[in-house]
């Protein structure tokens, strides 16, 4: 047994979508667990306001009313020995239903298949801010381990009492308490029979150290995998209710449009169709989706809108449209030493600008919601990374107390940071209220590409200096719009000025896997390469030379060894590296590119990512996330960019917005550094940040052409090459 690792992660200063107002303006009481699950043992926490706000704060719009008023129950052991754990975290493909199940099974000493997780149901689970920021593993995994350890203690206590035996010699294993002396064993179900016990979580309780894990640390397959390969699992868009209607929203042709007039007469004549016009919202509900589409097409709406910027002028626009000081909510400026003086004194300095385009999440399941009213009680099934946040949006929009709103989140067809808001939930609920029937809204692909939000574009300016010994002496870094996540440099530099400049974004923008860390790492790691060349030092040696952090040095050094960085490369091949520290994870990605001088094809030949996220909870799930992040990252690195013109998205289909497909993928390798002595960290985001700069740096190594923007592909086209 060991002490509990302490983890603190700052919540990123950027949460654009939480600052956005609800998308429309319109005119169950606390859970009874014993009734719900029967007798047994509960492990609960007093709802600590401090903690709840930290981890589960619900964002700026949510008031104190949204915090639990009594206790939060986290775990229940039933008379049949079944274990139910409750969490506000949700499953969007990162496989946390599996890794959290492992945490419970490990500490409670029960078989994995006896554990059931209730996730993201606002009526049943403790309040939670949402599933983002790679917080599930460092925070929720730890929390469920703690409650499971507490439950195990209660069970041992009860068994000791029942047997009148010395508690100290009893052990728990495989769902029962065992007395090694008498060879007696009591299954948990029998221990809790007839009991109704609520045990509060003790402040300190030792946890099983990672080095002794039996279930955690193992490559457990997806716990409900069979439901997915058989089509049995019901995603939000698959949910149905008797008498349900299909909803459709009439969208303006451009962003920021105001409704002038709407002719809804023809649509209203259709059988069973309800038409709603409320403020800027126009929508229909109909017994079939095709009838809903027909009704929508019969509605003629006049909108008015002002001229809006276009993607061809994006980067100039971002530089010119910073928010006034008083509207800004950015993190503190980092100032250290005297940058100006250091730049003036330096042997060599480099000044460059890096441009990052908007990209779309394009989750394969578009936003979807099914809403049902019972009197003034609203229930919504929807795919969101913030069930409690969406509950808050619904309560605000419909002028309800939050207790009247229940949001349920069935395991969803991905998110990547793109499903924080409750747009589809609000639309479905508004249509359901008007039609007095349950209504399901599923966004079309075009709607998803247009009316969701985007990863922020950005302009990043970097000025730096290096001394004659290859030590970086000055670092000035300005990020316009893309965000503050990952903006601090982890290199050891005495003089720094680092600043994020928020901008009035021309498009609706918000979270995306890794937030701005991808943009900031791109600029930093490409710039590091430029600086290494200015100092005539090998780019990998240059990084290691300027790093003090041991774990970060490790991923660079061990990744480089595995990749074969020092090995001579074939003619017309180039090597590149990029990496850093993000969301408690240490990452270094290595890339080899090959150039065909005849055809001009530049191909990413192979990718290796070395990663350290502390003690690994599930190596198989981790590999899936890490390779997945690199594949997703390949799109943003090579070719993804949102094109827009005067309030319209020009490439809002998969035919025009290219995402990585089977033919695009080079061999990819993961090098996992399992640090059993370190707390477990998340892995959904950090592994995405190293790829783009590594490719850019490899292209420079092969061709001597420096690509200073994302995506890279179009920049190389202008040099006469095709990058793939």
């Amino acid at each position, binding site marked *: 047994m060991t002490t509990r690792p302490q983890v603190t992660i700052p919540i990123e200063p950027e949460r654009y979508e939480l600052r956005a107002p609800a998308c429309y303006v319109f005119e169950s009481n606390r859970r009874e667990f014993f009734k719900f699950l029967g007798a047994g043992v509960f492990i609960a926490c007093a709802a600590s306001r401090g903690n709840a706000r930290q981890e589960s704060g619900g964002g700026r719009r949510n008031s104190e009313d949204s915090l639990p008023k009594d206790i939060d129950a986290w775990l229940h052991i039933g008379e049949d020995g079944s274990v139910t754990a409750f969490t506000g975290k949700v499953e*969007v*493909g*990162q*496989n946390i239903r599996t890794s959290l199940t492992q945490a419970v099974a490990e500490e409670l000493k029960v078989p994995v298949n006896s554990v059931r997780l209730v996730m993201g149901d606002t009526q049943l689970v403790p309040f939670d801010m949402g599933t983002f920021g790679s917080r599930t593993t460092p925070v929720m995994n730890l929390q469920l381990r703690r409650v499971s350890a507490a439950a195990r203690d209660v069970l041992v206590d009860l068994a000791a009492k029942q047997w009148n035996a010395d508690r100290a010699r009893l052990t728990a294993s495989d769902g029962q308490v065992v007395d090694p002396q008498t060879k007696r064993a009591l299954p948990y179900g029998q221990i809790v029979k007839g009991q109704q016990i609520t045990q509060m979580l003790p402040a300190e309780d030792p946890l099983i150290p990672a080095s002794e894990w039996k279930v955690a640390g193992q490559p457990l*397959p*997806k716990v409900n*995998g*069979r439901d*997915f*390969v*058989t*089509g*049995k*699992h*019901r*995603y939000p*868009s*698959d949910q*149905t209710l008797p008498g349900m209607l*299909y909803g459709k929203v009439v969208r303006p042709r451009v962003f920021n449009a105001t409704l002038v007039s709407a002719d809804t007469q023809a649509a209203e004549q259709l059988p069973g169709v309800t038409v709603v016009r409320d403020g800027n919202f126009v929508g229909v509900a109909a017994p*079939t*989706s*095709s009838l809903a589409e027909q009704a929508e097409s019969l509605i003629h709406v006049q909108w008015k809108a002002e001229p809006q910027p276009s993607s061809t002028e994006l980067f100039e626009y971002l530089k010119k449209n910073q928010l006034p000081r008083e509207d800004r909510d950015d993190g503190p400026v980092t100032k250290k030493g005297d940058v100006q003086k250091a730049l003036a004194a330096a042997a060599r300095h480099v000044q460059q600008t890096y441009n990052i385009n908007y990209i779309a999440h*394009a*989750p*394969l*399941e*578009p936003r979807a919601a099914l809403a049902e009213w019972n009197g003034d009680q609203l229930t919504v099934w929807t795919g969101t990374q913030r069930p409690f946040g969406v509950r808050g949006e619904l309560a605000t929009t419909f002028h309800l107390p939050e207790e009247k709103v229940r949001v349920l989140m069935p*395991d*969803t*067809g*991905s998110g*990547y940071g793109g499903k924080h808001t409750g747009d589809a939930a609000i639309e479905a609920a508004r249509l359901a209220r008007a039609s007095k029937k349950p209504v399901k809204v*599923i966004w*079309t*692909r075009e709607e998803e590409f247009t009316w969701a939000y985007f990863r922020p574009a950005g302009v990043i300016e970097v000025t730096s200096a290096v001394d004659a010994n290859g030590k970086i002496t000055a670092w000035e870094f300005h990020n316009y719009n893309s965000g503050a996540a990952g903006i601090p440099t982890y290199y050891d530099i005495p003089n720094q000025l680092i600043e994020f400049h928020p901008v009035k974004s021309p498009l609706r923008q918000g979270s995306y896997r890794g937030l701005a860390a991808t943009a900031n790492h791109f600029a930093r790691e490409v710039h590091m390469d430029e600086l290494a060349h200015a100092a005539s030092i090998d780019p990998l040696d240059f990084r290691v030379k300027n790093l003090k952090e041991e774990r970060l040095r490790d991923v660079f050094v061990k990744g480089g060894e595995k990749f074969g960085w020092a090995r001579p490369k074939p003619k017309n091949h180039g090597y590149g590296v990029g990496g850093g520290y993000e969301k408690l994870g240490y990452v270094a990605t290595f890339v080899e590119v090959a150039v065909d001088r005849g055809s001009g094809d530049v191909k990413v030949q192979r990718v290796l990512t070395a990663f350290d996220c502390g003690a690994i909870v599930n190596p*198989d799930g981790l590999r*899936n*996330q890490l*390779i*997945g*992040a*690199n*594949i*997703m990252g390949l799109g943003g690195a090579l070719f993804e960019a949102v094109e827009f013109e005067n309030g319209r998205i020009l490439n809002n*289909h*998969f*035919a025009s917005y290219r*995402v*990585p*497909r*089977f*033919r695009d*993928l080079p061999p*990819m390798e993961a090098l996992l550094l399992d640090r059993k002595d370190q707390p477990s960290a998340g892995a959904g985001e950090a592994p995405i940040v190293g790829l783009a700069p590594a490719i850019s740096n490899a292209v420079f190594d092969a061709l001597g052409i420096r690509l200073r923007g994302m995506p890279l592909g179009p920049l190389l086209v202008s040099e006469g090459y095709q990058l793939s």
Partner: protein
Amino acid sequence: MATMKLLINGQSHRVDADPDASLLSVLREQLDLTGSKYGCGEGQCGACTVLVDGKARRSCQTPVSAVSDKPITTIEGLAKGDNLHPVQQAFLDEGAMQCAYCTSGMIMSAVSLLSFKANPSEKEIVDYMQGNICRCGTQPRIIAAIRKAATAMQGSRS
């Protein structure tokens, strides 16, 4: 509206639908077969893939009237009782899914490929699966699963 007969997963169904309605909408809305997914409605992502006469078809692009009386297999009809199809089993064994929203379409496409190419090369798999999108980036495992299924199916034939 027209009344049509559909033969799905070995069962005959009578449906009343607009003849131009997509097979996907009829499967999902009228027959509650929600394993086939909407991903784009334009035949660009493959999430809606089903088998018609044993061949992969994008059900979002297939008018329901065009497949009346033809045998249709959806993901729900692939397993025989409790026994998974070898492709389903291989996807499970390889952990070839993350959010798994693309999985049913991936599996149906793979079944179609293996029906006419018993032992496809990696390049043949990649080329055939090019029309199926996995946004989570599980493609390498999907390729491995298809190879594994091919081996398993050949083994069971010999």
